[in-house]
């Protein structure tokens, strides 16, 4: 096919990508936005296959079918509570694909001799580096979210120094490959001796980048995962964009940078929602040394309540605000929670949901769970909106959330000082549904639990919620 036509089709595809993402900004149009973006992808794929000479159709088709079957099955059968893991895996594959393409280009260029320019050299190196970091980093993130790798921050002495040295090593290997030469000392390897000489350097680059990806994610704890998943999402986009530089392909650059921008915005939002800098999330290893020792749980008296009492309080309230946290996802209690809310609404109680931006393990995690349980999205209020309402709310029901409702955030000496929280303590009555008094991810005690107006409703969220369904029905 004519190259001009190909480029024009890519332009249509780019337009569809941008307008598709734009449609994602409203729940009413989001689904067609996603469909539009997938059309854009299909268009780009078809025109690419038609305009390039495909020597081996069997391999190409077999690879596409294999990928489509695996991806489709994962998407079809995954549980909504496991969504963060799935996003992490898909992310990793996106990064891995970019790295594989760059590596293939490198192998091809290695055989071609000195014809390779500096620009292409640099972009091959960058694309491989970012893609490989995304790949291994995402797999570790998957492991942490799935519980295969410990959710606690993994740290070792001189970790930052080691990471910095490794990064430097990777850069040196990359720079040598990219024909730049380090301080004039290293010979421009590309093209000089072909693959025999540059091969080991390339291998060092790949291995170094893979290790770097692992090391960048293991020190980050479970509750910081929304930041990591967003950041890796951004990386996968940037990796695709750099691959576009390697291949001189506009649509790769456009689509890749759109994703890069999306990931970066989400990363910034998540950091803001925790009042922490990206550097602090990446290297802070929050909730480790010393901080846990400060928690002195169980020392003070709490007001313990059973399902019957809680049901009474809820059933005779005028307005209830539900605050879901990661505990809701772990217990898979979203459907039972919805039943309780339905019963309350039948009685004339106003029910709304207050969702903290970093509740759960990825941005918007709670919203997806509640949507799965059939909660109307206009009842899901974000931080600012629900905070304006707590003054006039009769009962707040907190399900498996802790740090995001901890009033200690208002204390300048606290480790979570300045973190935007849900001001649940302003409500008339607070019910906390939780397994135990154990501290949350930040490792600090929560004064909310010991307030006179707080009722602690201990136990597994799902069992307690079923219990509550029965009691509210009888109330």
């Amino acid at each position, binding site marked *: 096919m004519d190259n001009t036509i190909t480029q024009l089709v890519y332009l249509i595809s780019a337009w569809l990508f941008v307008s598709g993402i734009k449609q994602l900004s409203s729940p009413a149009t989001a689904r067609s936005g996603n469909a539009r973006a997938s059309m854009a992808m299909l268009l780009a794929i078809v025109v690419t296959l038609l305009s390039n000479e495909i020597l081996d159709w069997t391999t190409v088709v077999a690879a596409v079918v294999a990928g489509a079957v695996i991806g489709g099955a994962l998407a079809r059968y995954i549980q909504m509570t496991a969504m963060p893991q799935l*996003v992490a895996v*898909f992310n990793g594959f996106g990064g891995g694909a970019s790295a594989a393409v760059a590596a293939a280009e490198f192998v091809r260029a290695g055989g071609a001799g000195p014809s390779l320019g500096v620009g292409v050299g640099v972009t091959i190196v960058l694309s491989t580096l970012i893609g490989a970091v995304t790949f291994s980093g995402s797999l570790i993130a998957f492991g942490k979210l799935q519980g295969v790798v410990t959710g606690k921050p993994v740290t070792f002495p001189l970790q930052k120094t080691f990471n910095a040295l490794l990064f430097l090593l990777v850069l040196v290997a990359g720079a040598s490959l990219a024909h730049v030469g380090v301080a004039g000392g290293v010979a421009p390897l590309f093209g000089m001796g072909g693959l025999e000489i540059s091969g080991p350097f390339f291998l060092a680059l790949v291995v170094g980048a893979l290790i770097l990806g692992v090391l960048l994610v293991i020190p980050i704890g479970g509750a910081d995962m929304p930041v990591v998943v967003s950041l890796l999402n951004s990386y996968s986009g940037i990796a695709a964009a750099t691959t576009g530089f390697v291949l001189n392909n506009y649509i790769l650059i456009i689509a890749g940078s759109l994703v890069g921008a999306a990931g970066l915005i989400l990363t910034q939002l998540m950091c803001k929602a925790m009042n922490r800098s990206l550097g602090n999330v990446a290297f802070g290893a929050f909730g480790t040394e010393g901080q846990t020792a400060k928690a002195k749980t169980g020392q003070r008296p709490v007001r313990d309540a059973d399902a019957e009492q809680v049901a009474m309080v809820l059933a005779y309230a005028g307005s209830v605000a539900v605050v879901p946290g990661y505990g809701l996802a772990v217990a898979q209690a979203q459907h039972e929670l919805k039943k309780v809310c339905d019963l309350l609404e039948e009685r004339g109680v106003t029910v709304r949901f207050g969702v903290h931006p970093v509740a759960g393990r990825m941005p*918007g995690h709670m919203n997806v769970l509640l949507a799965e349980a059939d909660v109307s999205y206009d009842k899901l209020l974000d931080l600012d909106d629900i905070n304006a309402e707590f003054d006039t709310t009769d009962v707040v029901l907190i399900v498996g959330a802790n740090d995001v409702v901890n009033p200690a955030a208002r204390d300048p000496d606290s480790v979570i000082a300045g973190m935007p929280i849900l001001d649940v303590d302003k409500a008339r009555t607070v019910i906390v549904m939780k397994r135990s008094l154990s501290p949350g991810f930040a490792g600090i005690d929560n004064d909310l639990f010991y307030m006179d107006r707080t009722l602690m409703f201990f136990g597994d969220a799902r069992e307690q919620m079923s219990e509550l369904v029965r009691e509210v029905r009888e109330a």
Partner: protein
Amino acid sequence: MGELLILLYIFVLATLAGREVISKVPPTLHTPLMSGANAISGIAIIGALVVTGSADELWVKALGTAGIVMATINVVGGFMVTDRMLQMFRKR
């Protein structure tokens, strides 16, 4: 203007366009946005197809094929799971 510069222009402008368009997404849709964007990052499939299609060396073909498989998982899985999520977001 050199080819690399043109590519850089496209990169910067597309990033700015992305920023503009995405900064208005409400928190409710953050997860679908992320998984939808994720699927789009599978655009690397274009590169994988080009590389694999024209490959005459074993290693190039092997890497390209791995690229196609990974990118297709990303693209097909990503768009499908986003759609599955979005059909649950309903107003009643």
